[in-house]
């Protein structure tokens, strides 16, 4: 009790890392901005891998009886394409932007748990590499990203065991991220940043994080059951042992449908930031758009069985899920109308972020309309598992999520790096992506309605699908070209270094108040927020509609006055070390029946994580100076 207010400096297991630059600077960083960049770069790396898989798939299907890929490789590629794009691209790209911009947009110095944030990234990276290592260890997962039992429990090889553990590891990353973002948004807002003044992107991030928080444990249980079935001879999905294969589907889609909204809501949030900036207007119907987002979050839990209309649920359950599926379109429609309202009467500038955001809106309408058609159950029994479905969800996840995320990249790039991405190249990329995406996925509606089933590595001649499949392949390469243009744009723009300034788009939210790139502590002075779109009002002096209601800023007690005494969280080894243990234990489980020493590997992995967590707890968040 007699000790001082702060604990005396102590050494943990290792000397505290101090590097702020170089490889170790990145590996031990707990700065949300650096972690955001790591997340984004890793996601783009996986985007290229998943894209190459897609190109191989399209080459195989360009003509009937294609011979580019064998059935084995095709099944691995389409499975890994799905897993990659969902878990290693769209989700982490959203997380990258959330990581970088949640603290900046709510006026905080960092996220609530900086080391947990770093942990989340390293688990994500190692989980992704763990999954991809399966290609070199006898074959990647080949039972579809949906892993339907009992196919997934009986497929030979270790592919689906890698699937069960790889997704489990990625789930840990998502859960850690979700908890962190929820607490950050609830607890770290700048003074005056009330909930109804939060930027729409922050709201959508909050809803997404809650969806993750409650969806991840469900898939975790399903994946554990799959793992026990595959490795330890349990009977969860084994019909001979009394298991019910439909249990997997219920658990998987109870996670899987919220997952769809986990992927699309961040993009909706990004678009809701970009449109007002480039229309130079406040968002139309802020409250409605926020509540619609929350409503989608709630209703997303009540529609899962529309993925299962063909399994024999009986007409009553089928009707109930048809109704819920129809009515989830209502809040989605509200969002589209509000985006239109935001454009209406504006002063619209077509900069490249705006083009991507408009691409999102126009493509999402198509995906939304085809989505409603799945609720027409008798016809869904026809179109389910055809390319019509592939078309639908690519209009939502590519035309929607990817366009929104690219919009976010173009929009926030100058803030993150201090220089602009080239406008001309950006427009070229947009049009290539827009045309390529419609060429690829548009015809899939047609071949789907002409009866081409998905997940088939080949199709015979004479089915009437040849022409459109060739067009789809051409479209896929147009998309690839567009991604190449993006990479070229990054390199050329980096070389040109066109200075961005603090506020290149004349934008509205707090992140544009600080320097580009932001200083390590984000803001020299924590802003005091008086209105929605506070920065805009500070610039143009609009009258706040409500008087400010100051609240205390998170983690910013005496920091609001000058940057001299700012104690930022210090770098740490432990998040990385704790993450390393998980894939190690994962390999032990995969090879449990092959290596006699596998239990030791599992034990070592768990011990690494446990000891690292222990070191983490003993290490103060901020090192003494």
């Amino acid at each position, binding site marked *: 009790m007699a000790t001082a207010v702060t604990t005396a400096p102590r050494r943990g297991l290792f000397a505290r890392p101090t590097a702020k630059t170089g490889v170790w600077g990145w590996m031990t960083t707990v700065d949300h901005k650096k972690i955001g960049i790591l997340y984004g770069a890793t996601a783009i790396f996986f985007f290229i891998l998943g894209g190459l898989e897609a190109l191989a798939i399209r080459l195989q299907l360009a003509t009937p009886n294609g011979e580019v890929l064998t*059935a084995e490789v095709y*099944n691995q590629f389409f499975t890994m394409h799905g897993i990659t794009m969902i878990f290693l691209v769209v989700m982490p790209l959203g997380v990258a932007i959330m990581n970088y911009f949640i603290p900046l947009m709510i006026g905080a110095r960092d996220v609530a748990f900086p080391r947990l944030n770093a942990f989340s990234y390293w688990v994500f990276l190692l989980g992704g590499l763990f999954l991809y290592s399966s290609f070199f260890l006898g074959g990647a997962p080949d039972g579809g990203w949906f892993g*339907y039992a*009992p*196919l997934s429990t*009986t*497929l030979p090889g270790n592919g689906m065991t890698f699937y069960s553990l790889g997704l489990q590891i990625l789930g840990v990353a998502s859960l850690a991220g979700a908890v962190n973002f929820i607490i950050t948004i609830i607890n770290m807002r700048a003074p005056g940043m009330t909930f109804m003044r939060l930027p729409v992107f922050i709201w959508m991030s909050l809803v997404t994080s809650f969806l993750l928080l409650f969806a991840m444990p469900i898939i975790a249980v399903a994946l554990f059951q799959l793992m026990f079935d595959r490795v330890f001879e349990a009977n969860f999905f084994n019909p001979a042992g009394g298991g*019910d*294969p*439909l249990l997997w589907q219920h658990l998987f889609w109870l996670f899987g449908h919220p997952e769809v909204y986990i992927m699309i809501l961040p993009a909706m949030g990004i678009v809701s930031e970009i449109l007002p900036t480039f*229309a*130079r*207007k406040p*968002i*139309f*119907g802020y409250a*409605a758009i926020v509540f619609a987002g929350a409503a989608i979050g709630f209703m997303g839990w009540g529609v899962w069985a529309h993925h299962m209309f*063909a*399994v*024999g649920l009986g*007409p009553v359950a089928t*009707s109930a899920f*048809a109704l819920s599926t*129809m*009515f989830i*379109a*209502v809040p989605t*429609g*509200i969002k589209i109308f*509000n985006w*239109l*309202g935001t*454009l*209406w*009467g*504006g*002063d*619209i500038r077509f900069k490249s972020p705006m*083009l991507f955001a408009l691409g999102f809106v*126009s493509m999402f309408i198509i995906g939304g309309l085809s989505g*409603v*058609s799945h*609720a*027409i*159950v*008798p*016809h869904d*029994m*026809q179109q*389910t*598992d055809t390319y019509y479905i592939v078309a639908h969800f690519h209009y939502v996840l590519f035309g929607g999520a990817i366009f929104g995320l690219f919009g976010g990249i173009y929009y926030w790039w100058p803030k993150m790096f201090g220089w602009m991405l080239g406008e001309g190249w950006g427009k070229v990329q947009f049009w290539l992506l827009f045309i390529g995406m419609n060429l690829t996925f*548009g015809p899939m509606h*047609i071949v789907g*309605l*002409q009866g081409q*089933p998905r997940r*088939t*590595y080949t199709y015979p001649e004479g*089915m*009437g699908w040849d022409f459109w499949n060739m067009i789809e392949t051409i479209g896929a390469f147009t998309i690839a070209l567009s991604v190449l243009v993006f990479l070229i744009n990054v390199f050329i723009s980096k070389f040109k270094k066109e200075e961005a300034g603090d506020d290149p788009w004349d934008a509205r939210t707090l992140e544009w108040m600080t320097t580009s790139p932001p200083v390590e502590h984000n803001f020299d002075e924590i802003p005091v927020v008086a209105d929605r779109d506070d920065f805009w009002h500070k610039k143009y002096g609009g009258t706040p509609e409500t008087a400010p209601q100051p609240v205390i800023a998170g983690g910013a007690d005496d920091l609001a006055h000058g940057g001299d005494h700012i104690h930022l969280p210090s770098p740490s080894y432990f998040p990385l070390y704790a993450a390393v243990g998980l894939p190690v234990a994962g390999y032990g489980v995969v090879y449990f029946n092959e290596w006699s020493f596998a239990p030791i590997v599992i034990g070592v992995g768990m011990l690494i994580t446990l000891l690292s967590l222990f070191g983490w707890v003993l290490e103060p968040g901020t090192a003494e100076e």
Partner: protein
Amino acid sequence: MTSPGRSRRVLLGAALLALALVFGGCAEDAPQDFLNHQMGPNAEKADRIWDITFLIAVVIFFVVEGLLVFALIRFRHKPGRVAEQFHGNTKLEVVLTLIPALILAGLAVPTLRTIFDIASKPEGALEVTVTGRQFWWQYEYQDFDFQTANELHIPIDTPVHLTFEAADVIHSYWIPRLTGTQDLVPGRRNELTFSADVPGRYMGQCKEFCGLSHANMRLIVFAHEPAEFQTWVSEQQKPADPASGDVAAGEKLFLEGECVNCHAIEGTDAAATTAPDLTHFASRETFAGAMFEVNEENLAEWLRDPPAMKPGAPMPDYGLTEDQIEKLVAYLMSLD
């Protein structure tokens, strides 16, 4: 500068849609097309709601995308334009929430009615048990006491009641021009009632990913005039003709080799049921999941190495000699 780009986009969209309609309309050469040429009540009922839905969707598409494009052109940046600063319009927002809700409620009525309609099971249906196996279909005609594979024969204008079982993993039975899909789930008994209006040959295939040769798990439904169907049934009910002359050597190989462990041929000692019943093999158009035409070349190639012809086929390469293959082919081709 972008407004011409915008209108190009609209043109492109419209062109795509027009093409879609054109190609949808001339789908005579697309045997699994279910948007046109529905040949059974289930498919027709589904198509009727689809037509309404599609029409509404097209109207909404053009209205909303039209408004979007209009707003982008009308409110594009020009020197001197000042954006109007308004935050919303409650009345408009309520109306725009109610309109889609009402449209959806309108669509819900025929949807629910059709769900219950298709689920009802009429009296006097032809009973067939379908078992899905990697990667082919096994049919058991309970009323007539015989088995066949991959090719389902039915009389027209008669309800057919299929009972589904799955031997290994989940499969899904689908005849696009006649009826929507139904999953075959191990450990469950699903069912489906459908019928065909017109005699013909209808193609379908497994729709739930079931492993390596999911793409090769096809099926054909032959719909006959009732009298023709009766003839087919009485042919199928007969045991295989006793083998004589040239083909007797093939029968001997069949019964003394590995074949008999999995296949059945009525009228012989072969009675296993894990592989297709071959009693009237040569009467079929196709074999191995309705993938290959039944002829001597295909059959010989199959016997040389089944998984080479169809990835993941459970029947292994038994290392048969060319002479054995020739005899077996001759025997199997005699089973009509």
